[in-house]
């Protein structure tokens, strides 16, 4: 067995192992450390001596490391004495693994703790990918284009913060559940958007990063099936990812929605997205559900011309009321331009400019330039597109903007 085989088993088992140990020890950091020790040992011993039951091996080893740590700390710290003194300590963890319902709650608790509001947004992302997604620090660093030591430092600090703030390893109380779930959803969405529109670097799409978010959203949807917005987020991710195969050309340059070969969309992903959207609609759509409904309107249209832009305008209006943001307004402007005409769209964009609602963003001049071009106001359009290119951090998007300006 090689490194990739060890990593594959770890991907499948990590959440359950860390969750089980965290519940048992009540110490999230200790659980994560013990689990990491087990993987490190597997990387050394499996190539020469592959276990018959790799998943069981990891769990047993992680449990032993956790118990070692508890016994070692018991000598130094009171709070571990009781745990270490329990005669059935090893048996207790064994019995524990067998209860599938409990494991589900524990994996869910793991997601809530990893996305806890006491943590910085970067730490939430890193911790979620590490403990729930089972990614290594190297993989997370690659995903977010940061150095490996930065990721390691974020995770170490996050574990210390959780301990310092006394965050218990449990599901949030009912009264806080909805709000905390919103926090988890936003972490998953941040991961997804990093993959679907890389904020920097020379690639527009990083499907492997987006895939991690989709996978975590599927897990969350399985464990919190009664929460419509979880399905809304899953639908949004599936429907957006369905367009990935058509979104870039052979050289990696972005292809805009209007020019995409819709035959290359992933129709099984669209079907999964539409199914999730149905589940999201049971009590009226929330912000993620509304965005998914917009993505669904595109996914079901044979062409840009045949798209139901009136419906999309309505959905953006609704989204702007439940989750107001200048980016939503800008998207509404684009939809209005398609439904009614570029002049009406431009009026909304100009309001955003006047109120200085999106300072420093390349999106505003990019859309403004596009609409001006459609109105035949070429010199102004060119200036806006060039401004957008200067503000844009993604090299692929930047060259598209410059090409467009040059073509006017």
């Amino acid at each position: 067995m090689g490194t990739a085989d060890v990593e594959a088993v770890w991907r499948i088992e990590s959440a359950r192992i860390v969750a089980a140990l965290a519940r048992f020890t009540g110490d999230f950091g200790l659980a994560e450390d013990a689990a990491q020790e087990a993987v490190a040992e597997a990387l050394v011993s499996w190539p020469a001596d592959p276990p018959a039951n790799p998943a069981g091996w990891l769990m047993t080893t992680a449990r032993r490391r956790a118990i070692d740590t508890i016994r070692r700390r018991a000598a130094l710290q009171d709070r571990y004495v009781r745990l270490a003194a329990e005669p059935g300590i090893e048996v207790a963890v064994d019995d524990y693994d067998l209860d599938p319902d409990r494991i589900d709650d524990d994996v869910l608790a793991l997601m809530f703790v990893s996305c806890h509001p006491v943590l910085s947004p970067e730490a939430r992302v890193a911790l979620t990918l590490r403990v729930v997604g089972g990614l290594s620090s190297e993989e997370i660093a690659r995903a977010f284009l940061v150095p490996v030591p930065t990721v390691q430092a974020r995770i170490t600090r996050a574990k210390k913060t959780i301990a310092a703030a006394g965050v218990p390893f449990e599901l949030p109380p009912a009264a806080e559940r909805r709000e905390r779930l919103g926090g988890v959803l936003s972490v998953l969405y941040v991961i997804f958007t990093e993959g679907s529109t890389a904020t920097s670097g020379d690639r527009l799409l990083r499907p492997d990063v987006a895939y991690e978010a989709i996978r975590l959203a599927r897990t969350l949807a399985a464990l919190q099936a009664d929460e419509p917005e979880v399905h809304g987020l899953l639908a949004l991710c599936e429907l957006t990812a369905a367009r990935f195969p058509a979104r870039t050309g052979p050289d990696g340059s972005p292809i805009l929605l209007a020019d995409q070969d819709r035959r290359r969309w992933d129709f099984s992903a669209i079907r999964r997205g539409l199914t999730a959207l149905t589940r999201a609609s049971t009590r009226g759509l929330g912000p993620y559900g509304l965005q998914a409904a917009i993505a669904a309107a595109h996914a079901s249209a044979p062409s840009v011309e045949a798209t139901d832009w009136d419906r999309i305008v309505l959905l953006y209006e609704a989204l702007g009321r439940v989750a107001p943001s200048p980016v939503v307004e800008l998207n509404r402007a684009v939809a209005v331009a398609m439904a009614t005409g570029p002049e009406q769209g431009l009026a909304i964009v100009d309001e955003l400019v006047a109120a200085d609602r999106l300072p420093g963003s390349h999106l505003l001049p990019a859309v403004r330039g596009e609409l001006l071009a459609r109105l035949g106001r070429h010199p102004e359009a060119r200036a806006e597109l060039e401004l957008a290119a200067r503000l844009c951090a993604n090299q692929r998007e930047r060259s598209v903007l410059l090409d467009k300006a040059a073509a006017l």
Partner: protein
Amino acid sequence: MPKYMLIMRGTDESNAAMMANIEEMMATSRQFIEDMFKAGVLLAAEGLDDPGQSVVVDFGGDAPVVTDGPYGETKELFGGYFMVDVASKQEAVEWARRVPAAPGAKVEVRRVAGDDETPQDTQDSVAERRA
């Protein structure tokens, strides 16, 4: 991301062994499906009905010939599949190791053909794969 089909290939012996323990087999299969579902990797799963009921359309001659029953010579028969959306081939194999299967059965791991890789690759990663 790569999709793989885990293809169940049973023999007469493994099918008989499965039928002898059908209750236990179904409970294990349900748990397996649930595990994959909760891991966020399961896209689809189907089991095929009795091969004795199948019909084969043979394109060996000038015109397709339709005959009842499975291929006469085949030792292992396609009995069902799981479609998984995973991070690597190794992960697909790891799930395949966990498929509840009776002794004698085989699980084949096949990648689903797709164009999910090349379009967004940079020149570097394309070169890396060629190397």
